[in-house]
């Protein structure tokens, strides 16, 4: 009996100790905050750029910034691109969003609505930042929430070997020429397809880059003048009908419905597709991975007979400041620094992108001619991405994507498709 009581007491004590330990563990976490006694400020900069850039490149830019701004320390918080949005959303919801955040144009509207990111127009006014050199600003209801730091444009890439093998001596410039070329490449029978169309629903940005780009290239729009959805217009209809005709021709590489941008570029690099619409930033990657591949870039083909200026889709690494940040002044200093002519040149050089400062001139290394050519295409046309700044724009692309997949599979007609999209988009606006 006495022994049994002792055993029980041991049990109770041990368990009690463990519960206490768990409690201690729970409260023992550190919560060091920025802003030390000597007035120094640490700002956090969350982005997905660091892993995309050469090792240590972004850190060294931050070191330069710290040297130029004594008293400010920048802590880089880097995450994978695919999860950045969730992380920011969760951080904003619990009031711990980092001071400076990397943004994609597709997220701006939602974060602005959530009250997570600051109105930069008034912040720039307060701090006296000159915005005249900014190439663009993403505005919601007249106020800037995101500044594109660098831009990645999406021209047409063509495999010139496949093209000439197929007997086409000119890079297609119209939809008809493109379709002819795509058919000729597919008909070579070498297993190569004419075109590649990534429609993965996980990352539905193929709708923006690979589908709607056809519309913008012919001067079309998917919105009304007041910015409301207008996908039932004739331009959008002709675009999806064109994609459908390519689909029915069998010139699109297999696996479209789950293909992602990263797969698309591997197909092209391996010479298995003749043409793709893709980010300019891939030039180096393609050259590195397959030095023997001969390819060229061109503007995205327009509707036959269209001679207006062509929209060229782009994606940005944008930047914003957290609305809840205690160090907005310092945060804006970092933004200003990244947007300054020299730093912006450097950043766009290492990112293989076009600068967000009008005075910046990137120095492209290998593949220089192609970048210069792309810059010409870019300047003779206009940057077009109507999804930037729209509410839940990724979801809009996904809804469009789902219906497009139904249309391509033959489950519905083009009118059904577009009116369904129009309804679901209208509900989101």
């Amino acid at each position: 009996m006495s022994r049994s009581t002792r055993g029980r007491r041991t049990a109770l004590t041990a368990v009690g100790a463990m519960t206490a330990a768990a409690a201690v563990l729970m409260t023992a976490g550190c919560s060091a905050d920025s802003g030390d006694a000597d007035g120094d400020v640490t700002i956090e900069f969350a982005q997905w750029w660091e892993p995309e850039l050469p090792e240590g490149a972004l850190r060294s830019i931050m070191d330069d910034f710290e040297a130029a701004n004594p008293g400010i320390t920048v802590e880089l918080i880097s995450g994978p691109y695919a999860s950045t949005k969730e992380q920011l959303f969760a951080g904003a919801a619990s009031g711990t969003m980092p001071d400076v955040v990397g943004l994609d144009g597709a997220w701006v509207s939602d974060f602005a609505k959530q009250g997570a990111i600051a109105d930069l127009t008034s912040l720039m006014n307060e701090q006296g930042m000159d915005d005249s050199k900014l190439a663009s600003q993403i505005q919601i209801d007249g106020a800037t929430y995101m500044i594109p730091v660098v831009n990645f444009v999406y021209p047409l890439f063509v495999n010139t070997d496949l093209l000439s093998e197929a007997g086409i001596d000119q890079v297609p410039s119209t939809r008809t020429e493109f379709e002819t070329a795509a058919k000729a490449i597919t008909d070579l029978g070498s297993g190569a397809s004419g075109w590649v169309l990534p429609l993965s629903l996980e990352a539905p940005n193929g709708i923006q880059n690979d589908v709607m780009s056809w519309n913008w290239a012919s001067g079309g729009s998917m919105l009304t003048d007041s910015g409301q959805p207008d996908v039932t217009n004739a331009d959008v209809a002709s675009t999806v009908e064109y994609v459908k005709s390519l689909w029915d021709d069998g010139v699109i590489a297999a696996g479209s419905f789950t293909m992602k941008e990263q797969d698309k570029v591997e197909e092209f690099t391996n010479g298995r597709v003749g043409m793709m619409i893709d980010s300019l930033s891939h030039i180096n990657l393609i050259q590195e991975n397959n030095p023997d591949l001969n390819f060229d870039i061109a503007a995205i083909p327009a509707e036959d007979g269209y001679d207006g200026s062509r929209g060229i889709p782009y994606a940005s690494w944008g930047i914003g400041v957290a609305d809840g940040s205690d160090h907005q002044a310092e945060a804006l200093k970092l933004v200003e620094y990244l947007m300054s002519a020299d730093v912006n040149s450097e950043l766009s050089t290492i990112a293989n992108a076009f600068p967000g400062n009008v005075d910046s001139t990137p120095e492209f290394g290998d593949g220089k001619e192609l970048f210069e050519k792309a810059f010409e295409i870019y300047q003779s046309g206009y940057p077009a991405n109507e999804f930037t700044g729209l509410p839940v724009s990724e979801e809009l692309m996904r809804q469009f994507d789902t219906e497009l997949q139904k249309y391509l599979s033959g489950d519905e007609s083009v009118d059904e498709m577009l009116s369904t999209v129009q309804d679901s988009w209208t509900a989101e606006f």
Partner: protein
Amino acid sequence: MTIQTSRRPGVSRGTRTNLARLALLLGLVAGATFAFAPVLWMLSSSFKPNTQIFEFPPRLVTEAFSFDAYARILTDPEKVRFFLNSYIVAGAVTLLTLLVAILAAYAFSRFEFPFKRPLNVVIVSVQAVPPITLLIPYFGLMVTLGLYNTYPGLILTYMVFTLPYAIIMMTGYFNTLPRELDEAVRVDGAGSWTALWRVLVPISVPGIVSVGVYTFMIAWNEYLFALTLTKTTDMRTVPIGIQLLMGQHSYEWNEMMAMSILGSIPVLVLFLFFQRFFIGGLASGAVKS
């Protein structure tokens, strides 16, 4: 000739055993193909440059075979740190989960008490909430508790996810053991604490090891909460390191593969070491300790 005839009865028994052995071996090889073939492709890809991973027709080994991807990972202190973090977190989670689960399972298996049933329902069903929806409340909670970006934060989080399974399985194992075993000790005057650690736990080693392996795997492979509850590079774990190689525009295919191979080797070694507990058998020796 004669010798063979005289041996016939023996031979036929031997043949039957041999046939069974052959059938077993065939089954094992078929199973191994199913399990290993995809991993073989992962291995093969980790030795190739990125382009050859996607070449058609595919080749298992190419002339460009190299250990570059492995070298790049092992020489990057940041990535080595990911491995270290994963070991610390997964190791701590495994030990703590086992400890806490054994106690709770003992209560569920050997005691009758009010709220036992509802508690059981709660433990089973809380796992059904999609973790993704818990993310935002959880994040806020961790920040409030001061556990954001700390080891304890991750460890306690994983314990919450691994405990239900560990408790259910340990309760199951304890239930299969005759009550007479521990009650005999208690009749001798020892308390329940002694009965648990001296009698039940030693017999349950195979169960404990299998729960431990499971716990380790969950903690080792978890991505979403690891990413959300940490922010600095020195706190990140291997699954985040792998995802960091999946860029916005392109993937580092061979490094991803190499990193997950590197990540799996220690776990495999650990498993091979502990697996002797699966073949020990119940009666042999375990009770003696």
